[in-house]
C-alpha cells in the first residue's frame, strides 16, 4: 500500500517526465552533431544525454532505470568511447599520417577532417554520457530505496506528508 501511495503522489511529475525525456534526448543528439556549426560538441551532449536518464532515475526509482541502462552497458560504453577516440588516431597512423592527423583518412583532406572530428566528438560524447550515468548509479545504489525517490533529503519537519 505504501507503494501505491508513493506512485499516486508523484503522478503528475511522472506524466510530465515521460513527455520530457525524449525531448531531452533529442536535444542531446542535436548538440552532439551540430557542434560544428554552433556551440556544442561532445562534452555538453554527453552531459545532457546523461541528464535524461538521471531524471528518469529520480522520478521512477533507480531500479527501473537500471533495467533500461544496465551497468554492464555503461562499462562497455565508457571504454568504447575512449577507444573510438584513440582508435581514430591509430587509423590515421595506419593510413600513413601522424597520430590524430585527420587529413589522411579520406581522399579529400577537408572531408577527412570533417569525419575525423565527427568520430572524435562521438567518442567523447559516449564516454562522458556513460560516466555521468555511472556516477549517478554509484550514489543512488548505496541504499535500497525500492520505490521511493532516489535521494531522500531530510526535510526536518517541513514535509507535508499525510
Amino acid at each position: 500500500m505504501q507503494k501505491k501511495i508513493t506512485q499516486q503522489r508523484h503522478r503528475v511529475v511522472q506524466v510530465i517526465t515521460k513527455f520530457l525525456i525524449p525531448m531531452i534526448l533529442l536535444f542531446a543528439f542535436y548538440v552532439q552533431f551540430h557542434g560544428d556549426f554552433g556551440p556544442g560538441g561532445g562534452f555538453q551532449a554527453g552531459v545532457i544525454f546523461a541528464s535524461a536518464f538521471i531524471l528518469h532515475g529520480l522520478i521512477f526509482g533507480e531500479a527501473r532505470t537500471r533495467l533500461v541502462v544496465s551497468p554492464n552497458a555503461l562499462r562497455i560504453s565508457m571504454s568504447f568511447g575512449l577507444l573510438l577516440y584513440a582508435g581514430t588516431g591509430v587509423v590515421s597512423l595506419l593510413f600513413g599520417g601522424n597520430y590524430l592527423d585527420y587529413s589522411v583518412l579520406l581522399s579529400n583532406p577537408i572531408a577527412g577532417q570533417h569525419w575525423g572530428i565527427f568520430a572524435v566528438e562521438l567518442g567523447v560524447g559516449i564516454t562522458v554520457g556513460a560516466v555521468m550515468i555511472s556516477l549517478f548509479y554509484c550514489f543512488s545504489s548505496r541504499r535500497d530505496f525500492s520505490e521511493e525517490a532516489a535521494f531522500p533529503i531530510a526535510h526536518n519537519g517541513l514535509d507535508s506528508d499525510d
Partner: protein
Amino acid sequence: MSIDTVVVEHVIVMVLLTLLIVVAIGIIVLNDLLAAIILSGLYSIISATVFVAMDAVDVAFTEAAVGAGISTIILLGALSFTKRIQKPQEYTNYWALLIVCVTGGALIYGTLDMPRYGDPSSPANSNAQVAQHYLTQSKAEIDVPNVVTSVLASYRSYDTLGETAVVFTAAIGVLSLMGLRRRRRKEDPTVSEKQQRRQQNEETK
C-alpha cells in the same frame, strides 16, 4: 555608440562578478547544507552568464550543464547520506585566516602584471604560429564554421584526448571506491565482516 557598448558590457560583467562574490560568501557562511548546494548550482549558472557576456558560448554551455546540472545532483546524492544541518564551528582559526589573506593578496598582486583583458597585442593573441594561424587558416584547412570545435577536435585534439581520458579515469576511481552493485540495508557488508571477525576470534580462543 561602440564605446557605450563596451562600457555596458564591462558593467554587466562587474555586476555578475560581484554577485559571484556574494554567492560564495553565502556558501561559506550557511549552515544549511541543502541551501549551500543550491547556491553552488547558482554559482555555476552565474559563471555561465559571465562567459556568455564574454562571448564564450561553448564554455558557458559546458559550465551550465556540468556545474549547475551534474555537480548539483552528485552533491545532493552525497548529502542524502548525512545530516542536512552542519554543526556550527566551535573555534576560529586566526592563523589560517592570515595565511589565506596573504596568499590571496599575493595572487591579486600577480594579476597586475597580466595583459589587459581582450588585448589583441598580448603574446597569446598575437602569436603567428598558434592563435593567428588557427583563426585565419581554420576555414581553409578544416572548413568547420565553429572555430572552437576545430581547435578542440583538430588542432588540439591531443589535449581533448587527454581530457576524455581524465573523465574516464575519474569514473574508474569512483567505481572502484563505491561500486555499481546495490547494497541492501539488511545485508550491510561491514556488519557481516565484523561478525565474521568476532566468530573467528571466538573460534581461535
